[in-house]
């Protein structure tokens, strides 16, 4: 066995996994507050990436300004979506809301095609292009820096929810909206912030992923493949998103490298199946209370 090769592959996988974790974070934050899997996450990522394209490519704003601008734009989009399309669904069954997010995904794809056409795009490069070497191991620069930026954001979120009341408000809202209101929790605001911060994480991930993989109106599909990550980690666990993201990224890459690209998905889904048998709520997900 070629250990150097295995090392390099693993490193590439782990780095990609960091970005998965960041996308997963987008799912988790929104799920934590609303018990809804947001199927439009991929499209929000896409939208932010297009915004970046417009800022950095079209208007030629420096990437270091364009990235934050686009990320904020994505977050704002999340907030607007929540306010106009999710809020009226307050109190309805989560599955209906999930369906609404699917409708939103379709709207966003249409919008992007309308504004930026259906042509595939590449983002202007804004990350250093010199190869990164860790010891002898080569790592593509884009994913290396993408990983670092993503991790920084993840850890920020993790700390916030560990050490503030915010996490409690989020979970209380998810658990019982009416009761949360009666505690003085501004449920609408919690929903809104959850969407804003979820979309913020997703937007950053969107730009970083699009920077390595290119961009097109079908970009959003990546959101679906990250579902594996959130399920393995546990739908409402930020730590789970982090660990599962890195793990799934690694697994997928190694499976792809050694077995062939067509084995990437089956490999990760096989792991998902095995994990669910032993941990029905993922590695760190909250167990549903079962009482009579």
């Amino acid at each position, binding site marked *: 066995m070629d250990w150097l090769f295995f090392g390099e*592959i693993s490193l590439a996988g782990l780095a990609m996994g960091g970005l998965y974790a960041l996308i997963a974070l987008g799912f988790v934050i929104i799920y934590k507050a609303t018990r809804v899997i947001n199927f439009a996450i991929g499209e929000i990522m896409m939208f932010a990436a297009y915004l970046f394209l417009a800022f950095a490519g079209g208007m030629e704003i420096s990437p270091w300004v364009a990235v934050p601008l686009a990320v904020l734009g994505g977050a704002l989009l999340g907030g607007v979506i929540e306010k106009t399309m999710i809020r009226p669904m307050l109190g309805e069954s989560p599955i209906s809301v999930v369906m609404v997010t699917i409708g939103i995904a379709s709207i966003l794809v249409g919008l992007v095609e309308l504004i930026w056409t259906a042509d595939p795009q*590449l983002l202007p490069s804004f990350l250093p292009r010199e190869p990164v070497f860790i010891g002898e191991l*080569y790592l593509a620069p884009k994913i290396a820096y993408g990983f670092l930026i993503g991790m920084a954001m993840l850890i920020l979120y993790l700390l916030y929810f560990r050490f503030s009341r915010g996490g409690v408000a989020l979970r209380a809202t998810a658990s019982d909206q009416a009761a949360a209101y009666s505690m003085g929790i501004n449920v609408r605001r919690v929903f809104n912030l959850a969407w804003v911060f979820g979309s913020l994480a997703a937007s950053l991930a969107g730009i970083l992923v*699009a920077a390595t993989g290119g961009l*097109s109106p079908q*970009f959003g599909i990546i959101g679906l493949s990250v579902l594996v990550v959130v399920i393995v980690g546990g739908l409402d666990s930020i730590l789970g998103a982090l660990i599962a993201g890195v793990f799934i990224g690694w697994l997928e890459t190694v499976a792809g490298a050694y077995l062939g690209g067509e084995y990437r998905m089956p490999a990760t889904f096989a792991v998902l199946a095995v994990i669910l048998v032993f941990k029905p709520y993922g590695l760190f997900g909250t167990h549903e209370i079962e009482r009579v």
Partner: protein
Amino acid sequence: QDKDPIVFGGSIPLSGVFAFAGIHLHAGLTDYTNWLNDQGGINGHPVEYVMEDTAYEVDRSVAAFKKISGNENLATYYGDSTGFMKAIAAEVNEMNSVLMSGASFATALTNNEQYPYQFIPGPNYSQMFGIILEYIASQGEEGDMPTVAFVYSDTEFGKDPIENGKARAAELGIEVVEEIVTKPGSVDVSAEVLKMRRARPDYVVFHGYVLSPINEFMVQMRQMGLDTQFMGTFWSSDKLIIDKMGEDADGYMGVMPYNYYDSEEGGPMLDALRAQAEKSDPEAGYRPTGYMQGWFNAMVWTEVVKRTLDAGKELTGDNMAEALASIKDWDTGGIIGIPVTVKDMSFPVGRIWRVNASEGRYEPVSDWIHLD
């Protein structure tokens, strides 16, 4: 004009994954039809082009076909995907009244028994690989052949020519040192690039992509100091690559059966095409290969219909297929640089072009290659 119109139909992917090409196909078909009508149609018959958007989904393409074929007296039809071409085959065979071609260059469609009324307006994907491999072989010599790696997407489209391509490579004595399958579209390919770093192929042939991940392979492999030559098939050889990749695209090669819109070649039809394109949308400037493909499609339809009518025959599937098969040494007026002959319902011809990034266009690096 009081003659019955001849109807060209189409299931066109104006939205969905293939929309980037569909929009230009549509423009090509539309412009050709308008141009043709300005010339007086086909033997005095006006031509109508009737289409619907399919979003590149098979069931919607089929729906569009049923709708259009139900309402119109269809002569020819443009199909947007291999899946559609296969799904509709049974029906088309039974109808025996429509000749079909489209965006798919799938190898299977050149099987005349299964698809007697469907043709390919260019070489099929296996033939494209053949042309590419022939070019590669011409760059080496007996006993010292270059090595090659295939990179293709995990789709029917992507896998289409691989078996034939490998067989052809073996015939030519070219070693396939690596074979990489990826998801289509936006994926991270760092791990695959690492495999390339070990395989060190002289040539990499991409198939089943439009843009990504070709750019990542090229950039990353060059960052690693490999001096591989990168090549791609029809849908991977559009100007898009230059527009989006800029300098990074320099040296990339593609196989293309038609002249590029901005090539230095000329010819009466190519000039007519440019004039019509300019007329219909003066702003648009360059027209992508999808446009050329749409135009050429309609040209072939016209030729087939004309030949059938000239022979005093009805426009049945059989008659049109026969007329198509009779095309031999046909001068396309500069769309294709040499006279072409139909073989197995396809036009097995092409040329290797190379990106000149500073000029921002493809330039020919080989002669026209006509497979026999």
